[in-house]
């Protein structure tokens, strides 16, 4: 049995290889170019489009292949392990809130039939449709309800992977034959790269041109803002986050947070660090480095300085706290309705950047009004 499968896949691989070598001149016209995103690739063939996703989690080095075959067309010969998705998709389930920003930006919310984390969704249209029953709630993580998902009969499930196999629902979804697609946008290191995954989502809806246009506008605005902030002579120092259960995860120096702060004309205190994800530190270490920092941002769910000091009075020893330079991305945070910065903000890094520039260099952003951030009082 096994040798037959292997033989089969070798045959398929050879066939695709042959096809690929014949096709480049044909596909050039509608190939999707990614300028910033590094974990995704879209190739166009005569019969289908092929999306390859890599780096889906910190521990994964697998490649995931997705063939987008237009509805009504016969399925071409594809290499084994290629997930087939019939497009354009009309019944979509999202397992993480981050996808909502992309789908909303592409004006495809109508297609959404299921969401996994209703308490974390900020989008009001979706909240309303959950209440009216148009959008169903499905379980995510280890308690995945496969039967419910099968009954929903989606033609696309968008999810992301977790490096912890115990928490990762993806393998279970694949086993049950559901049309599930992994995204690696959260693993990107540039804020524009995360936004560029708009093109990836658009491919499933056949709205590539819109995605291209929206993304180009976002890039243009982002670059303009970054150029404006790049001329500053004084870069204020900044640190992020709060400790949870004793551990303070600060964003790594190669993370998109670090990149955004750099573009906003700030001096991120861990910018020299070479990790992409969070670095687990204890309070003392963060205090030693950041005691004199000018700004403190992204304080999780803290909405006021009082609640911050109530938790641990040592927070008051940071200079940023004493001078009131504490800003959280909580302006659109709703207690059981998520935070818009994790939906719209992912697709609109230009808006986030504008907020940050206003924090660090208010003189450069006099007309801008905060969209996601607020100063904690």
């Amino acid at each position: 049995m096994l040798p037959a499968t292997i033989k089969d896949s070798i045959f398929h691989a050879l066939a695709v290889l042959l096809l690929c070598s014949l096709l480049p001149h044909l596909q050039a016209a509608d190939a999707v170019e990614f300028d910033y995103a590094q974990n995704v690739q879209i190739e166009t063939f005569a019969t289908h489009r092929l999306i390859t996703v890599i780096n889906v989690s910190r521990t994964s080095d697998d490649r995931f292949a997705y063939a987008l075959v237009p509805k009504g067309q016969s399925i071409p010969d594809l290499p084994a392990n290629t997930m087939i998705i019939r497009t354009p998709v009309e019944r979509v389930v999202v397992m993480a809130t981050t996808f909502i920003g992309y789908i909303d930006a592409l004006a495809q919310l109508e297609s959404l039939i299921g969401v996994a984390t209703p308490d974390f969704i900020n989008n009001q249209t979706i909240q309303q449709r959950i209440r009216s029953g148009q959008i169903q709630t499905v379980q995510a993580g280890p308690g995945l309800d496969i039967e419910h998902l099968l009954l929903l009969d989606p033609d696309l499930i968008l999810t992301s992977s977790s490096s912890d196999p115990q928490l990762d629902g993806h393998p279970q979804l694949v086993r049950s034959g559901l049309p599930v697609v992994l995204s690696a946008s959260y693993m990107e290191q540039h804020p524009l790269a995360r936004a560029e995954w708009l093109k990836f989502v658009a491919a499933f809806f056949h709205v590539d041109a819109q995605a291209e246009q929206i993304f180009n506008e976002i890039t243009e605005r982002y670059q303009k803002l970054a150029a404006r902030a790049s001329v500053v002579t004084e870069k204020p120092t900044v640190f992020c986050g709060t400790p949870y259960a004793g551990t303070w995860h600060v964003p790594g120096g190669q993370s998109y947070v670090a990149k955004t702060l750099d573009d906003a004309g700030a001096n991120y205190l861990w910018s020299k660090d070479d990790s992409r994800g969070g670095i687990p530190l204890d309070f003392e270490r963060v205090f030693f480095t950041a005691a004199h920092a000018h700004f403190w941002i992204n304080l999780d769910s803290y909405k006021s300085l009082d609640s911050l000091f109530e938790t641990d009075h040592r927070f008051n020893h940071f200079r940023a706290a004493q001078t009131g330079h504490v800003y959280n991305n909580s302006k659109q945070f709703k207690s059981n309705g998520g935070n818009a910065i994790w939906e719209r903000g992912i697709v609109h890094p230009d808006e986030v950047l504008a907020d940050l520039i206003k924090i660090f260099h208010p003189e450069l952003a006099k007309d801008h009004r905060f969209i996601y951030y607020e100063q904690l009082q």
Partner: protein
Amino acid sequence: MSAHPQQSTTTPKCSSRFILLVLAVFSIALLSACLGSTPLSPAVILQALTASPELDDVLRQIILEFRLPRILTAALAGAALATAGLMMQTIFRNPLADPFVLGINSGASLGVAIVILLLAPIGINLTESLSFSGQTLIVIASSAGAAATLMVTLSVSRKVDVMSLLIVGLMLSYAIGAVVSILMFFSMSERLQSFMNWSFGTYGNVTWSHMLVFAPSILVGLSITLLFMKPLDAMLLGEHYAESVGTRTKQVRFFTLLSASILAGTVTGFCGPIGFLGIAAPHLSRYLFHTSNHRILIPATILVGALLSLSADLVARGPGLNISLPLNAITALIGAPVIIIALIKQRNMKRLFG
């Protein structure tokens, strides 16, 4: 090596061991004060303690607000867990008993699971309106969870014999553990991550304002145990024997369990479930002092517990590295070999436990 329990009460050898232990605790505490995010010299520590005006403000705060409470917490927590472990091993006459056999640990984790997995997703409103958030709520929840299981086991302890109580404690742990895993099953991965973070344990969250509750609770728990040193020796020979020599076994059992629960519950509430110290420290003390006499064993266990706890915390903070490690992994790494060595070297375990 195999001295009879009753022989080695207060020999000179014994007191020199105590002096060595005290010295070891103080030197590891000093080492802890010097190492961390930035290495500091003992002279700088002294400057901070004497409020010298020459010292940099950040360094002074690091010593006084971070390292000092942490060292004190580590020492107190280690002493508390070790003593609670010793009590449990004596009362149940079982070398495998630890502070958590009566379900205190799982009770605390249920309290925390309810806060992190059930309430937190519903919203911050809850904590905002009560004007405390995050850490404080976790402390309250886990102490309440520990206290609730403690009430159940203590009320049962008056009705059944000691072996049944052990089984009741185990069953309670299983049942509560099951509720926790159901909560985990229905939770998002971010929330699970927070819950797991709590279960790693840490000494870094006890600030001076927490210390006002933390330290007195532990001192009260420790003082109760000191009142029962003599009856505990009798208990070790079995409840029947203890009764025949005039020990009021039910009373002794109740108060030792009460003190052990206060000790383990307080530590779990403030620092998370810290494993292994409660088993390792009593065994190491028995090995070091070759005795089962509680007049020696209790102070020895307090010191050994503090020593092991301070060492584990020192390693967990990863001096020289730029990261911190989960405390619970380190206590297990230090605790397990200690138990194994103590057991191999001390083959008369059976005699110590009658």
